[in-house]
C-alpha cells in the first residue's frame, strides 16, 4: 500500500489546520455561510437533508485494517454508529456536527486519510478496479497509475477552477470492473505489439442527466507520457469547457459538441507542445511509487485444500456463499473474497462500526491486512488463503456480513436518495430494501443468476441506474415518488446505456414491476444465458409487453 511521504503528511496536516481555522471563523461569525460553503466543500463537508455529511476519500478504494478501524471510531464517536460506502469507493458519514469535523479530520490524518477532492469542481478521488494487484486477468496494477494521478492532481494550480467536477478511473485488466467508459477520463491498460504496457485513453463518458459512453481518443499511450497527456486533455477542457451552464459543463458535452475527431486533434496538438517539456514523472519517481504496490511475498498455500472441499460438502450455506463471493486470484492457493454490504432488507453500502472492525480483524487474520471498497458498494479482501475460506465465512456470519448474493439480484447499488440527499427526488434505499425482501430466497437468486439492479434517487445518477441490467430512476411527480425503469445498461467493456421501458411506476408498484421483468427473463432465457445476454438477444419488447400487460 502507498504510505505518505513527508510532503503528503505535511500537505494534509496543513489542510486540517486551515479547515479548523475556517470552522472557528464560521462559528465566530467572521465567515458568512456564502463564504464558508466553498471552503467546507473543498474538505468534503456537505449540508444534506437532516444534517452535515462528510465524504471521506478512499483513494482507488484501498484501505488498511488500521484505516478501517479508524473509520469505525469515527462512526462510533462522531456519527450514529455506521457509515455508508459509496459508488465512488468513498465513505460518507451522515451525522457529523460542524464543530467536530476538524477533530474527525485530525483522526483521519493520523491514519493517512482525508476528505479532500471529494467535492467541488476539481479532479475527484481517482477510482480503480477493486481487484487491482490480485486479479488473474490483470496486465498491471492500476493503483500505481491512480496514485500518480492523485499526487499530480491534488495541488495542480490549473485544476482549482475547472468548469465542473472531473472523474478519472483506471483499470489494469481487459475485463473492466471500474466502469472506465463512464468517466470523464477512463484509462484501460493494454500491451502494444511489442509487449510494452500503456493505456487506451477514453474521454467524455459519464452518467447524470446526459449519459454518454466515452470516446476512445488514443489507442495506445506509453506509460511514460501519462501526465503530459492527461494535462493536455485537461488544458483543452479548461480552455473550451462551458462555464455558463451547469448542465453543459462536463467534458462529455464538450467532446460531443466539438466532435471526437476535432477534440482529439486539439488534445494531440496541445500534447505535442508539452510532451517532452518535463510534464511527465521521472522514471525514478514512478519506480518509487510502483514499489509501494509490489506484490507481497505470498506464503505458499495449498491449491486444493481438502478441508475446503469437505466444508463445501457439509455446509450448503458456505458453498452458496463461496459461489457468489469468491473470485480467481493470480497467486495459486489464494482467492479474492467480496464481502456483500447488501444484507436482505439492509441499506446498500452501509456498515456499522462493529462490522468495520470485524472486517479489519478478518483482513488481518485471513488476509494480508488490506481491504478494498468496490464501486458496487461492497468490500473486498484481496488475499485470502483458500484453506482459510471457511473460517473467514464463519467470521463474516458472526458479523452479519455473509450474505451470499454478490453479483445477484439483491446486490443492488443504491444512492442515499431522498432519505438523506438534498438533490434527490425520490427514495432509493427503501426501494432496494423492498426488492431485497422480494428476492430474499437465496436459492431463487442463484437460480436467476448474475443480474445488476441499480437505483438512483435523481437524474444525477449516483446509483448508476443507466448501466444496470435493470436501472431504476426516482422522479418527482407533483411531490410524489415515481420510478422509471431502464433495461440493458452495462458498465463494463461492452458499455451500454439502458433503454427506458415505458411509463414510470409508483413507489408501491416498482417492486412488482422488477419482479415481472425478472420472471419474463426466466421465461425466455435459453441455456445458461444471463439476463444481459438474454436482453441482447431479444431486446426491450418482450419485457415491455409482459410488464404493461400486467398493469
Amino acid at each position: 500500500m502507498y504510505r505518505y511521504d513527508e510532503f503528503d503528511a505535511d500537505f494534509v496536516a496543513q489542510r486540517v489546520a486551515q479547515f479548523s481555522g475556517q470552522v472557528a471563523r464560521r462559528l465566530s461569525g467572521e465567515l458568512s455561510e456564502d463564504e464558508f460553503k466553498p471552503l467546507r466543500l473543498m474538505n468534503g463537508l456537505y449540508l444534506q437533508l437532516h444534517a452535515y455529511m462528510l465524504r471521506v476519500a478512499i483513494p482507488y478504494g484501498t484501505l488498511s485494517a488500521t484505516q478501517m478501524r479508524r473509520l469505525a471510531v469515527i462512526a462510533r464517536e462522531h456519527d450514529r454508529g455506521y457509515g455508508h460506502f459509496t459508488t465512488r469507493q468513498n465513505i460518507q458519514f451522515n451525522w457529523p456536527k460542524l464543530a467536530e469535523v476538524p477533530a474527525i479530520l485530525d483522526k483521519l490524518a493520523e491514519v493517512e486519510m482525508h476528505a479532500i477532492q471529494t467535492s467541488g469542481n476539481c479532479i475527484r478521488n481517482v477510482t480503480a478496479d477493486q481487484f487491482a494487484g490480485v486479479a488473474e486477468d490483470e496486465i498491471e496494477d492500476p493503483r500505481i497509475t491512480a496514485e500518480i494521478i492523485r499526487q499530480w492532481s491534488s495541488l495542480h494550480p490549473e485544476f482549482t477552477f475547472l468548469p465542473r467536477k472531473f472523474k478519472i478511473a483506471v483499470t489494469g485488466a481487459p475485463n473492466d470492473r471500474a466502469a472506465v467508459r463512464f468517466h470523464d477520463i477512463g484509462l484501460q491498460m493494454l500491451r502494444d505489439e511489442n509487449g510494452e504496457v500503456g493505456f487506451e485513453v477514453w474521454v467524455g463518458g459519464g452518467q447524470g442527466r446526459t449519459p454518454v459512453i466515452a470516446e476512445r481518443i488514443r489507442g495506445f499511450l506509453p506509460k511514460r507520457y501519462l501526465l503530459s497527456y492527461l494535462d493536455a486533455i485537461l488544458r483543452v477542457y479548461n480552455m473550451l469547457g462551458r462555464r455558463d451552464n451547469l448542465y453543459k459543463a462536463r467534458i462529455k458535452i464538450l467532446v460531443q459538441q466539438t466532435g471526437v475527431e476535432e477534440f482529439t486533434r486539439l488534445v494531440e496538438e496541445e500534447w505535442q507542445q508539452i510532451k517532452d517539456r518535463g510534464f511527465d514523472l521521472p522514471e525514478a519517481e514512478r519506480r518509487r511509487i510502483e514499489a509501494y504496490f509490489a506484490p507481497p511475498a505470498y506464503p505458499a498455500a495449498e491449491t486444493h485444500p481438502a478441508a475446503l472441499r469437505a466444508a463445501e460438502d457439509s455446509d450448503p450455506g458456505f458453498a452458496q456463499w463461496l459461489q457468489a463471493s469468491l473470485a480467481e486470484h493470480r497467486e495459486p492457493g489464494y482467492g479474492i473474497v467480496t464481502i456483500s454490504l447488501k444484507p436482505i432488507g439492509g441499506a446498500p453500502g452501509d456498515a456499522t462500526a462493529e462490522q468495520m472492525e470485524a472486517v479489519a480483524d478478518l483482513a488481518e487474520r485471513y488476509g494480508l491486512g488490506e481491504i478494498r471498497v468496490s464501486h458496487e458498494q461492497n468490500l473486498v479482501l484481496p488475499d485470502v488463503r483458500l484453506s482459510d475460506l471457511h473460517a473467514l465465512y464463519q467470521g463474516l456470519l458472526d458479523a452479519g456480513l455473509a450474505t451470499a448474493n454478490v453479483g445477484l439480484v439483491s446486490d443492488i447499488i443504491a444512492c442515499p436518495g431522498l432519505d438523506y440527499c438534498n438533490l434527490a427526488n425520490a427514495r432509493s434505499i427503501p426501494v432496494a430494501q423492498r426488492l431485497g425482501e422480494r428476492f430474499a430466497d437465496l436459492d431463487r437468486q442463484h437460480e436467476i443468476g448474475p443480474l445488476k439492479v441499480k437505483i438512483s434517487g435523481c437524474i444525477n445518477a449516483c446509483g448508476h441506474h443507466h448501466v444496470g441490467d435493470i436501472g431504476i430512476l426516482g422522479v418527482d411527480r407533483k411531490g410524489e415518488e415515481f420510478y422509471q425503469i431502464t433495461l440493458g445498461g452495462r458498465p463494463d467493456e461492452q458499455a451500454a446505456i439502458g433503454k427506458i421501458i415505458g411509463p414510470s411506476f409508483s413507489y408501491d408498484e416498482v417492486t412488482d414491476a422488477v419482479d415481472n421483468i425478472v420472471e419474463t427473463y426466466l421465461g425466455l432465457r435459453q441455456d445458461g444465458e444471463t439476463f444481459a445476454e438474454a436482453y441482447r438477444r431479444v431486446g426491450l419488447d418482450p419485457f415491455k409487453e409482459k410488464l404493461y400487460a400486467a398493469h
Partner: protein
Amino acid sequence: MANTRKKVDGTPQVVTANRLLEGDVVYLTASGGWTTEIGGAVVIQGDAAEAHRLAEAEQAVAERRVVGPYLMQVANDAEGPQPLSQRERIRARRGPTAGSTVGSTLRQAAVGS
C-alpha cells in the same frame, strides 16, 4: 439569503432551515425561536407575514443560529402544519424513513444484543 421556493397563492407556509451547528432541520416559531418539531412552527399566510418571518429568519442567519432558511408549503388543519411534499415529509421526520432503522438493527445484530 433566504431561499424562497415557489408557492401557490394562499397556500399556508412555514419557514424552515438547518441549524448551523448540527445541521438539524428546524422550523421558525411564533416567538421567533426555532424548533425541530413541525407542529410548533408558525404558519404564515399573506405577503406581509411572509416578509416579516423571512426577515426574522435572516436575523437568525446573521446570528449564526441557522443556515439556508426558506418558505415551505404546508397543509394546516386541526393537527397543525403538515408538509405537502415527500421531501419535506422526510425532513420533518428528522431522519431517514428506513436507513437509520437498518443501521441500528445491523448494529444490534453485530453486537449480538
